[in-house]
């Protein structure tokens, strides 16, 4: 698996899938849950801020299983909120580790993109 090529491909994916958010909003509205997206946003931030902060220490400690778990969690949350590019970047990292990828330099590049994408998408999360 060529991690750098995979990253390049992932960066071509749109970063936010507005259709996904629209679908959730319609579903929540139909149930009278007008605060749902706001609550979901808060849940996303409160959970994932900590995940992001744990990634680099885990890499420095060589805890690859831990990194895989963190990426798995982040991938699921990002997918749920339609953050397609972040979802894809986490997926690549998870697959890379699963197939035995061990190139720390390439992995650092991936982590950098994940951190940047996480920060870039925070302002784009649905407010309500």
């Amino acid at each position, binding site marked *: 698996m060529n991690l750098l090529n995979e990253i390049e491909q992932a960066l071509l994916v749109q970063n936010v899938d507005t259709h996904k958010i629209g679908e959730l909003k319609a579903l929540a509205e139909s149930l009278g849950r007008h605060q749902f997206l706001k609550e979901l946003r808060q*849940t996303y931030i409160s959970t994932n801020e900590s995940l992001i902060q744990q990634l680099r220490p885990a890499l420095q400690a060589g805890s690859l299983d831990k990194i895989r778990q963190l990426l798995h*969690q982040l991938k699921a949350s990002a997918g749920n909120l339609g953050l397609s590019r972040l979802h894809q970047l986490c997926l690549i990292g998870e697959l890379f580790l699963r197939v035995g990828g061990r190139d720390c330099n390439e992995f650092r590049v991936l982590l950098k993109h994940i951190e940047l994408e996480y920060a870039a998408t925070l302002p784009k999360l649905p407010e309500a």
Partner: protein
Amino acid sequence: MDQNEVPMKSDRPADQDQEISERGIVAIVDDNKTDVAIASLMIERHGLTPMHFDLFSDLTKFIRTARDQVKLILLDVNMPGLSGVDILKRLKRDPQYREIPIMMMTGDCSVDTVKVTITNGAVDYIVKPLDPMVFDGKLSRILQVDTSAAQKEWVEYRLNQSTNGRVSLQIPGTLVSVGELTMTVKSPMSALPGSVFSLDTSLFKDVSITSVPCRIEACTPVDDEFVIKCSIVGLSEGDLQKIRIFCKSLWKTNLATA
């Protein structure tokens, strides 16, 4: 607590005093809070009560006190400590919980993962991120089938499921009206407007049509049922002609319902 069991982080523990819907409970075992929030929303749409359990032991303790109310367990495959597959195996080994249908949720759609869950007794699986349309179809299907026969039926269903975004769905109900491009059904199950389904039905068996591609246009609760209006989409001219013949036969025999 089991020695392998790791508490899942959650600031929203299962509230066992919450009001329970008459339709019952869907228990969710997942360590991802956004997954739980979204699955809960989709479950509520079906008039069911979602309950999130942090621990396997909390889940089994609750089921022992409310067995008849738990209609389905939604179980995440990838969790720290006891994995979803470990929990699945334990539940299916124990006669107290064996009959409760379990649907696995996974971000990993590899054939091996699916195979392991199905062979260990899960009735179905759903890939994350959750898609409301797919989730709706699967939930409707699971909750209307006899759980003892569910596994075989689901294996067949999964094999027949098309890959173009449509899901096969059986809506139980009474045909209220049918035209060559529309039909209206009264059903105890709801359906998501905008969804496209391949509707398996015996309604048109006399004209040799067993599956009708439909788009749900509206789903309105009326008394204890739902009135579902569908557009028939994507049938060939030959099949449409058969439906015309069927409609004419209904009118001729003066049947308003079938």
